[in-house]
């Protein structure tokens, strides 16, 4: 990765269909999604349920293969080992083993990823999400908010250049949401690129420098925080653009 790349993430004409039954019927999840995310920026993918946000993130994380189109992380195609090393990913639903401590859980994943200086990286990831004090406690004793922050810690563990967060604020109370917001701001301050999905529009508007509005598997609006404000705010754009 070098500063010559203005775009950290580039998606071009992504198409994805899911098979819905054994007869081979298919449902279109993405119908030609294209966008770019600037390096070091926090970008929000917003849109109603079924608009294709999570599918887009899964493709970028290398978990799904698109039927057509391509995407790159710092000019490396998705699926290459080098691009995998650049990505951290928090899935929408994640249950962590209750019997492990937060530190041991991160230690396992760090080992699997083949990271060096594991203890330092774990300490930094836990400090970033404000969980340093709870490192030695079992995951089973964590609240929902703490689990979500531990999920974020595993996503940033290898200090990836790009962090993909699927509904990171889902089910969190206001205090936990604020702590999550602080962690995301810190990631931006460190120069990482964050792409997150959210249903909670005020939060997305507050956290993100760039916003992408999706509906029916298509991008229907993309713009900077300022452009969104000029257009009347995200809520206004969302209601105006999406078919309710």
């Amino acid at each position, binding site marked *: 990765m070098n500063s010559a790349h203005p775009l950290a993430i580039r998606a071009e004409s992504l198409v994805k269909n899911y098979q819905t039954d054994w007869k081979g019927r298919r449902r279109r999840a993405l119908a030609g999604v294209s966008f770019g995310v600037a390096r070091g920026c926090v970008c929000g993918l917003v849109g109603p349920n079924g608009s294709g946000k999570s599918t887009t993130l899964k493709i970028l994380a290398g978990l799904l293969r698109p039927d057509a189109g391509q995407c790159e992380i710092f000019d490396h195609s998705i699926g290459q080992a080098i691009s995998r090393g650049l990505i951290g990913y928090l*899935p929408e639903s994640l*249950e962590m083993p209750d*019997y492990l401590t937060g530190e041991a859980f991160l230690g396992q994943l760090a080992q699997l990823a083949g990271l060096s200086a594991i203890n330092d990286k774990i300490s930094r990831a836990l400090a970033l999400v404000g969980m340093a004090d709870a490192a030695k406690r079992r995951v089973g004793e964590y609240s929902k908010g703490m689990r979500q922050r531990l999920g974020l810690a595993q996503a940033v563990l290898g200090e990836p250049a790009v962090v993909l967060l699927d509904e990171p604020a889902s089910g969190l109370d206001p205090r936990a949401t604020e702590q999550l917001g602080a962690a995301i701001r810190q990631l931006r301050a460190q120069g990482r690129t964050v792409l997150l999905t959210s249903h909670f529009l005020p939060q997305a508007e507050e956290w993100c420098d760039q916003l992408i509005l999706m509906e029916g598997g298509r991008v229907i609006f993309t713009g900077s925080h300022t452009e969104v404000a000029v257009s009347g705010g995200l809520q206004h754009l969302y209601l105006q653009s999406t078919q309710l």
Partner: protein
Amino acid sequence: MKFPATRRMWWLIQQALREVVHLRFVWIMGFIALVMIAGVSVLREFNFGTEEGRFLRNYVEATLALWGTVIAVILNVAMVQGGVERGALVLTLVRGVQRHEWLLSRWVAVAVALAWLTLLGYVTLGVLLVRHGHVAPVSELTLAGGRMFLRLMLVASFALTACVVARGFLMATGLALGLTLAAQLSSILEWAGRHGGTNTNWGWQILSWVVPAFHVLDGSTKALDTLLYASGYAALYALLACAIFSRREI
């Protein structure tokens, strides 16, 4: 620093074994041992005369076959489908683990668990036979234990395939038990293949090729042939599961 594939596989197997233990497998083994001991105590209340040793052995082996089948299916469903649902799979995939490595590590962990269970069953059987004054031939019990393990491994391989084909716990469990039942009724399938009409004949014939015959494991076939037959089918089912899983949407 790259994590070499062999070390990564070993690491995945270790984690899967930890998960087996945390699924209360040791408690379940203890429960099955108690069922065996209690059942033998009840059976001894009846007068089987000189056939008592054979009755006790049949009872313990039937208990092991039944509970082993249930455990092989449930462990696979909990570890494979549960792992996908909980997001455990996703966390490993984004760190460069291949889907087939993740799936095979679970299959190996279940195999180790079933080996423990078989060992426990046959050690319990040997101790019970000796304690009640019967002969417990070590070589014969070892061979019988090996055949039981192969049988349970076949069930585990059916369950692995069922878990990647079917969506949902119930469907996967049903499919795995259906395949096990077909394997159990293999001699009937072969008979139907020989005596059906021309069209049905082919259907039964294909089914009897696809599903291994459990009656091959009953001790009438040579030990090496049995080993090759069962391990070949188990490996085929595991490879099929890997092939399907590598293309499945998650």
